[in-house]
């Protein structure tokens, strides 16, 4: 239970901090959310900078363009990125945080050698084609069909909620390769290039008003068999590897950034004045913010603990569900407090007078999605109940 950093870890932190201090200020501000081309350029441009400086893929092997450093250094990286207010991972989310890691863990040598360096260099953007209209929480019920035809799978189906589909080069595509088998045993995990014929992307406005995700229609899309990760019909196991990364480590940088958000709330509270006192002078607000900040510190300690426990296996354990649930809870309460703080200034979604309405409202909306995306809160609770606490399984229809 040792929180001290080794000399090497400390050196890494100092180097990275110095590099960020020189690079972040000049990189400019993020483009508006609805201009996808600019967003892609901004996010991948930053990824390329990280890559060139040797800060992409912190714990991935050097031969694939990574840094070959430890998971602890990965955590240090998240801390420093947050401290420096560096650009968000953005469109690189899927590729760097769960698609790439899945290829690292389960892909062939050729798949790794091709994709990993390009993901790290910001040359490949990924999206996730898991959910379907009929298969959300019950993901294994997916129906997108893949039929073998020579060296290709011919794929027909309908994916939904596909974030970043508009700008992605590749998709984590789950398909049904054996419709006769029990549902968990007829799935395969494919790498789908997004420029193939037969892919139709239709943006779906979110409650935020922008097209964060899309529907993706697939008609006779020919995906090479060589693009499969893992064995045919073994896709459910591979999917669980992807989900462990998605639930376990993918949100780590969002978590650490919440402390900075709390500081923004304090700044805002100091700007809300009446009769010579500010909202920040209000003891109950100070307590609420102090309480949340204390929980955030424990949340980050929880991430450290789960990362250190995953050191041997390299894949986050089922305990990741607890981290995601705790994060979701704190994130939602924090941003709700931020909206309460705004009062009527929060009726505007752009900054209003001296108050950061834009940031606060957007974070509040984003927080709401966190209990839905990557497995809903209810599903995470089922997982903890059954796989950790050993409670009886949900009733399932007879196979």
């Amino acid at each position, binding site marked *: *239970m*040792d*929180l*001290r*950093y*080794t000399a090497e*870890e400390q050196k890494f932190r100092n180097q990275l901090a110095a590099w960020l201090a020189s690079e972040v200020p000049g990189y400019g501000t993020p483009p508006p959310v609805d201009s996808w081309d600019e967003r892609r350029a901004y996010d991948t441009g930053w990824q390329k900078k990280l890559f060139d400086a040797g800060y992409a893929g912190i714990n991935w092997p050097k031969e694939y363009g990574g840094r070959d450093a430890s998971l*602890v250094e990965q*955590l240090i990286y998240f801390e420093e990125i947050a401290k420096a207010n560096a650009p968000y991972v953005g469109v690189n989310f899927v590729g760097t945080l769960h698609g790439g890691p899945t290829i690292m863990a389960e892909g062939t040598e050729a798949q790794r050698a091709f994709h990993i360096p390009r993901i790290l260099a910001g040359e490949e953007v990924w999206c996730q084609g898991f959910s379907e209209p009929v298969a959300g929480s019950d993901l294994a019920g997916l129906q997108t069909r893949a039929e073998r035809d020579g060296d290709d799978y011919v794929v027909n189906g309908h994916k939904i909620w596909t974030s970043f589909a508009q700008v992605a080069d590749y998709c984590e595509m789950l398909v049904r390769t054996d419709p006769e088998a029990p549902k968990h045993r007829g799935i395969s995990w494919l790498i789908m290039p997004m420029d193939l014929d037969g892919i139709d992307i239709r943006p779906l406005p979110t409650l935020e008003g922008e097209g964060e995700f899309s529907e993706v229609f697939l008609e006779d899309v020919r995906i090479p068999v060589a693009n499969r990760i893992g064995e045919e019909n073994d896709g459910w196991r591979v999917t669980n590897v992807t989900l462990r990364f998605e639930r376990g480590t993918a949100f780590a940088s969002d978590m650490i950034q919440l402390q900075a958000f*709390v*500081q923004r709330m*304090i700044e805002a509270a100091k700007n809300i004045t009446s009769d010579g006192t500010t909202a*920040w002078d209000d*003891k109950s607000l*100070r*307590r*609420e*913010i*102090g*309480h949340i*900040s*204390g*929980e955030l*510190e*424990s*949340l980050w*300690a*929880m991430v*450290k*603990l789960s990362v*250190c*426990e995953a*050191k041997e296996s390299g894949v986050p354990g089922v*305990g990741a569900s*607890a*981290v995601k*649930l*705790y994060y979701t*809870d704190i994130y939602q309460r924090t941003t709700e407090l931020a909206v309460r703080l705004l009062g009527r200034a929060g009726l505007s979604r752009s900054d209003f007078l001296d108050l950061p309405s834009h940031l606060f409202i957007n974070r509040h909306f984003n927080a709401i999605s966190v209990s839905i995306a990557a497995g809903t809160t*209810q599903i*995470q*609770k*089922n997982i*903890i*109940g*059954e796989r*950790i*606490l*050993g*409670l*009886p*399984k*949900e*009733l399932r229809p007879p196979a």
Partner: protein
Amino acid sequence: MDFQPTEDQKALREGVRSFLEGQVPFDRFPALEKSKGFDASLWGELAEMGVFALRLAEDEGGIGLGFADAIIVFAELGRRLIPGPIAWSHLAAGLIDGAATGEVVVGGVDLIGPRPDPIVLEHLDSLDVLLVLRPEGIERVNPRDIEATEIETPLDSLTPVHHALTLPAGEMIGDAAAAAQMRLEGAALVSGIQLGLAEGALELANAYAKERQQFGRPIGGFQAVKHLLAEMFVKQEAARAGAYNAAATLDAPEVANVQRAVSSAKITAGESAIRNARTGIQVHGGMGFTWEVLAHYYLKRAWVCENLFGTQDEHAEKIAEILETLG
């Protein structure tokens, strides 16, 4: 950095756990209640196991372990609902002769916090020494010199309390800094106990949820119950992270702000202990409302702990002050 408990620490946890399960079976509780939460032979057993001497240097007769080890032991004490002034006696090791060996039972009262609380003394009748934490320093008071009335109806039947209007002047044995440090360490130790309470409450409720049948199946198979238990698990893990973080930061104060780490732990573990105790009772249904089922002990002890070395509210205000200086 390796935040995981070491193999030695895991072994320590297992050792203490099985020792306590053997020595303090829950059917010993009625007897403990009769003796008002204090049993000299149990105290001796705890001392022998090293609960009080754990962090005292070896050349002073202690075991020479760190805060991380202490937090693991205190979590086990909480999990087993061990009563008595365990945190105070541990803190007094090295300061009061005989505390480390259990021959002298040390309790205390914390008068540093900003709340205008009445002077409520725990376990007074069992104490040989009372430590008083004041902003100016640590005072040593002879419990026999205190005029106090026993409160006949303590919240926790294993934590007897007295009320004193004033305390006699004692001997100053530590300065302001020592008092502040003892309070900080006390809060960290209590966060360990709170982690244990959160764990114990979950363990009890989880076992019951598997065994109790309604509508032809174990109640733990109903999602409404399963999800309560999953929430308890999250609270338990949050408490663990918070308490370990406080302990590891006390062991290496150069890595982070110790006050912030300890206050975070007291908030997180405090909330977890109370929440899990309450949910644990709910999972037991009517049985949870009986004296016979242990669930209520966790709740009562959780409230005792909440009011030791600073409440959640006080620690939240402390964090707010720290955040303010960060700008």
